[in-house]
């Protein structure tokens, strides 16, 4: 195993810039590491080795000629398989799109290529990005690098497992309910769900107008996620949900402190299902914030109790896109629960959407009031750590949940993250501890719309001063030579 593969992008970027590390050698080492580890993880099912090595050679020539493009120049990255790359298949993990060759790069692919990144391949995902695991995919199940008998989370689970295991320095995922933050939490890395409208969704499949779905980075450090935001954020007229925003340097300052920061700690909803180890890790994080100079303030969002009723206000559009496939190509759904959820979605009526939207507006109003009192809110990312793939039930506070059913899995994997999709707010997950079984626990920090910089700053200050930070998962040591 090559220790270079576990450096941060900030560190590796400096080594490449100073020509201490060759992008070609780094890309080859990455490809070798994927070849060794992916039979266990199944996180990187699509590898374009020749193209990646060609891009790495180009990067090397450019850097040698004094044309250094910035911290991503020569850095190996991956993309979730619902983000299109010109000339490659983009499958969304579904047999229905198994031969679907896309003819253009997604905006986020374009931007990272322009920054000089080396695109290694595509990361595995849950079929149609419609579950918080990666159990069902045309490429097979993704396994967690902290314990391959457990889920990686999802739906960007291939991205989470790959970055955690050193198969890429960065992967770009998508998040409609949890899909960047959940695998980040389960795999012990950082995942940032940006504010709605901040990063272009052009080239994300399916091409819906689902405003609550966003594209976001998964990285090993908060600083690396912030570097990615510097490249990815910005208006794109090709995405109708893209908003104009001021140019911001998202990279947190090392001197940033938490002194005077007002941090909300929820008194309802977010700890209802949390197992004791998760709750105590998050409450310990809150005490760390206090010790670092922040003020902890109890906050309540009463309408979250109706979150399940609010969801019809925004989720039917995405499922509607799949209705035709669910009716006419039912056998091509690997996860039949998804197919039947799509079919059932056809019975949601306009009046339901209207009423759910009113409840959502009530929640928005409560959140606005809350963010007059606090600057950020901290919560667990999930109520539990990653569950076992071969056990149908997962333990939550006060009982067990059937994680083989779509609803049960949703409760375990998306309940604590989906409110911030509904609200369009930035939210990051980063490690805050480990269970007694050695599985990572995620802390979620959310802030006001377009206040992504503050969210990243706060996360970086916690990571630097109190959090466990990124640790190499046990699976990579199996291949240590």
């Amino acid at each position, binding site marked *: 195993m090559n220790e270079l593969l576990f450096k941060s992008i900030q560190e590796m970027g400096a080594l490449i810039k100073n020509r201490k590390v060759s992008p070609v050698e780094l890309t080859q080492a990455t490809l070798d590491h994927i070849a060794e580890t992916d039979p266990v993880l199944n996180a990187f099912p699509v590898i374009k080795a020749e193209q990646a090595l060609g891009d790495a050679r180009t990067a090397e020539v450019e850097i040698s000629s004094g044309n250094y493009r910035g911290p991503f120049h020569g850095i190996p990255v991956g993309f979730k398989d619902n983000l299109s790359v010109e000339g490659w298949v983009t499958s969304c993990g579904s047999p229905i799109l198994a031969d679907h060759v896309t003819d253009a790069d997604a905006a986020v692919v374009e931007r990272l290529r322009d920054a000089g990144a080396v695109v290694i391949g595509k990361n595995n995902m849950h079929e149609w990005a419609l579950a918080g695991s990666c159990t069902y995919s045309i490429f097979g199940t993704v396994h967690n690098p902290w314990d391959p008998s457990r889920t990686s989370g999802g739906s960007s689970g291939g991205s989470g497992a790959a970055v955690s295991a050193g198969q890429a320095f960065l992967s770009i995922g998508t998040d409609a309910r949890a899909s960047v933050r959940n695998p980040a939490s389960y795999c012990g890395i950082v995942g940032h769900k940006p504010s709605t409208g901040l990063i272009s969704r052009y080239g994300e499949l399916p091409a819906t107008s689902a405003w609550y779905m966003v594209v976001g980075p998964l990285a090993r450090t908060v600083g690396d996620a912030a570097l990615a935001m510097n490249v990815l954020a910005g208006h794109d007229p090709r995405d109708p949900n893209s908003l104009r925003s001021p140019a911001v340097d998202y990279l947190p300052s090392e001197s940033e402190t938490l002194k005077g920061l007002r941090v909300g700690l929820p008194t309802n909803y977010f700890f209802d299902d949390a197992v004791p180890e998760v709750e105590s890790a998050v409450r310990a994080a809150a005490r760390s914030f206090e010790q670092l100079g922040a003020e902890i303030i109890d906050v309540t969002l009463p309408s979250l109790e109706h979150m399940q009723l609010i969801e*019809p206000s925004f989720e039917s559009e995405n499922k509607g896109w799949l209705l035709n496939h669910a*009716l006419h190509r039912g056998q091509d759904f690997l996860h039949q629960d998804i197919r039947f959820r799509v079919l059932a979605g056809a019975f949601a009526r306009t*009046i339901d959407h*209207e009423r759910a939207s009113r*409840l959502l507006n009530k929640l928005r109003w409560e959140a606005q009031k809350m963010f007059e009192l606090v600057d950020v809110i901290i919560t667990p990312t999930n109520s539990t750590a990653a569950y076992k793939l071969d056990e149908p039930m997962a333990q939550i506070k006060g009982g067990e949940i059937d994680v083989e059913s779509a609803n049960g899995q949703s409760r375990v994997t998306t309940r604590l993250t989906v409110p911030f999709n509904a609200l369009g707010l930035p939210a990051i997950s980063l490690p805050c501890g480990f269970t007694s079984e050695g599985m990572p626990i995620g802390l979620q920090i959310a802030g006001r719309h377009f206040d992504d910089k503050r969210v990243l700053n706060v996360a970086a200050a916690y990571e630097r001063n109190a959090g466990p930070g990124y640790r190499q998962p046990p699976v990579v040591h199996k291949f240590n030579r």
Partner: protein
Amino acid sequence: MLSDETIRSLILEQFGSLLNDSEVNRLMPLVKRQYETSDKLASFDFGGLSAESTDYITDRRITP
């Protein structure tokens, strides 16, 4: 609460012969839940702006 018979006829009306019996049976509890969600949403008091105050939203298939 809608009867199983009503749920089944709603599914058949919507999807006709595109689903077989076993698929209809599997879908029934999910559709039932969808209508339960509708009932819960309808139970909220949204004040004078409630969509209940207009009659075009009445679904004659499920409203006696």
